[in-house]
C-alpha cells in the first residue's frame, strides 16, 4: 500500500510551473518508487517545500555528471545536434544531474534537476536541516555551486586538495602520496639525484 498521496503528480506539477516528468512504479512488496524530473532547477525549492509539507524526509542527495550519449557524426552541411535532458539542458557529459531522494514513510520519491556546468543550485538547508552534509559533500566532489548554504566548508576532503575531485583523474600514486607503485620509485630516484 502506497502512502504517497494519490494526487502527488498534479500537486508537484502545480508548484513547478516549468513542467515535470513523473514516473512511478510499485514493486511486488507494494513499495512505491517515484521519479520526478524538473524542467527547471529553479522549481526545486517549491517542490521540496511540497515534499516537506506532506511529511517527507530528505534521505540523501546524489550528484553525477551523466556521460553524453554517443551520436553519429553529422552529415555534410548539417549542424551537429546536441542531445538534451528533460528541460532542454545540453547532455554534453559535463552537465550535473542532482537527485534528491525523499522518503515518505517507506516510499521513495526522487526529485531530479539538471544544472549546466558552472551553474548553481539552491540549498535545501532552509527546509531540511539534514541537507547540510550531503550538500557540503556535493560541493567538494564537483564544481557545482550551492547557493545559500550556511556552512560551505569542506566535509571530508582536506582544504589543501583542489576542488571537484570527481571531475578529474587522479593517479593512484598521487592519491596515496606516492606510498606505492611507480610514483614511489620515481620519488626515490629524484631524491637520490638531488643528493648527488
Amino acid at each position, binding site marked *: 500500500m502506497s502512502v504517497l498521496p494519490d494526487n502527488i503528480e498534479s500537486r508537484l506539477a502545480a508548484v513547478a510551473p516549468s513542467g515535470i516528468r513523473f514516473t512511478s512504479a510499485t514493486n511486488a512488496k507494494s*513499495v512505491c518508487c517515484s521519479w520526478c524530473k524538473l524542467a527547471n532547477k529553479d522549481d526545486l525549492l517549491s517542490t521540496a517545500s511540497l515534499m516537506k509539507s506532506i511529511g517527507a524526509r530528505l534521505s540523501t542527495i546524489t550528484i553525477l555528471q551523466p556521460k553524453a550519449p554517443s551520436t553519429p557524426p553529422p552529415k555534410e552541411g548539417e549542424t551537429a545536434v546536441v542531445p538534451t535532458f528533460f528541460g532542454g539542458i545540453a547532455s554534453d557529459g559535463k552537465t550535473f544531474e542532482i537527485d534528491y531522494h525523499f522518503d515518505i514513510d517507506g516510499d*521513495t520519491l526522487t526529485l531530479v534537476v539538471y544544472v549546466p556546468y558552472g551553474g548553481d543550485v539552491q540549498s535545501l538547508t532552509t527546509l531540511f536541516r*539534514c541537507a547540510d*552534509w550531503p550538500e557540503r559533500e556535493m560541493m567538494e566532489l564537483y564544481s557545482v555551486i550551492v547557493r545559500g548554504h550556511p556552512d560551505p566548508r569542506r566535509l571530508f576532503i582536506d582544504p589543501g586538495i583542489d576542488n571537484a575531485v570527481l571531475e578529474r583523474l587522479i593517479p593512484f600514486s598521487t592519491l596515496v602520496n606516492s606510498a606505492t607503485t611507480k610514483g614511489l620509485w620515481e620519488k626515490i630516484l629524484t631524491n637520490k639525484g638531488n643528493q648527488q
Partner: protein
Amino acid sequence: MSNFTIPVGPLNVALEEPMYFKVDVHGETVANVDIHAGHVHRGIEYLVTKRNVFQNLVLTERICSLCSNSHPQAYAMAIEQIAGLTVPPRGEYMRVIADEIKRVASHLFNVGVLAHLVGFESLFMQVMEVREMMQDVKESIFGNRMDLGAHVIGGVRFDFTDENAAYLKAQLDRIAPAVAEITQLYRNNGTILGRTRGIGVLSNADAIDCSTVGPVARASGINYDVRVKAPYAAYDRLEVPVYVLPDGDVWSRAMVRLQEVSTAIDILRQCLDTLPTGPTSCTSERPSIPVGEAIGKCEAPRGELIYYVRMTDSPKPERVKWRVPSFMNWDALRFMMKDAKISDIAIIVNSIDPCISCTER
C-alpha cells in the same frame, strides 16, 4: 568559570575510529560541538565506478565491518531491480538470516562498549562473551567472523544443511537467555542507570529535524523501520515488532538495541521454522545488467541504508551513491551534547553507534 575549547579525537581511547570534535566548554559543561570529519575518507564512491557490477559486490562489503552484510544487500537489491531479477523464496529467507545474525552481533558490540565506557568492565566482558557465540555462528556458517560474503546478484551464495540449522538453533537457545539476563542488568543496575538515564537527550522534534534513523530515531519516539515500512527480502512474511521508546536518552538507545537483539533472535527462529526449499539464487551465471537506475533500501543495524545505482551501456556503473545511517545521526550529537558534562561525551558519542568508515567511505 572559564570557557575553553577542548579537542576530543581524532585519536581518543573512547572512540573506536577517528573523528575530531571541537568542544566548546563552559566550566564542566559542553556549550557547542563542531565536528571535523574525513580522517578515513577513501574515495570508495570513485572506486566503484572503476569496477564492474560483480566486483563491486565484494568492494561494497568492505566499506565497514559491522554492517558489512547490509552494503552488498542494498547494492544487490538495486541491481536486481534494474535487471528485473527476482530472488527465490529460499534466497530471501537466507538474506534475512544473514542480516539478523549481523544485527545481533553489531548491537551487542555497541551495548558492550557502553558498559566499558561506564566503567563496568565485568559487564562489558559478559556482553562480549555472548556476542562471541554469534561470532561462532558466523564463522561456522559463512566461514568468516565479519565479512560474510553472503550475497550474489540474484540471491545468496550459501545454503543451509540440516546440521547448520540445528547448530544455529542450539546457539540461539544459548544466546536468548543470556541476552535476557543482560537486558535485565541494563534495565535495573544502578551503575548503568546513573550514567545513562537522562544523559544525551534527543527530543522527538529534534530527532525529526535531524532526520535521524535506526535505533537513535526509535529511542526518540520515531516509529520507522525499513523492514516494516518498505519490506524487502522475506520481511513481508515475518513478524517484525518495532520497539519505540519516548525519552531519547543514552539508556533508551541501549534498550532499543537490546530489544532488537531479542527480536532478531525471534526472527531467526521464525526463519528456521518456515524456511522454504528450493534454490537460493535465481541464476547460476552472471546475469547481464541492462541500462537503468534504481534505489535499494534496507535496515542496517544502525538504521536505513540507501543505495542509488545508475547503469549505462558499460559493465561498470556510472554512479553508485549510498548513504549510511550514521551519516544522518552525527548531526544529532549537537543536540545530545548540549549542556552535557565533559565526562559524558564519550558515552553520548557511543550511543549513536557511530560508524566512521561507513560515513566517510
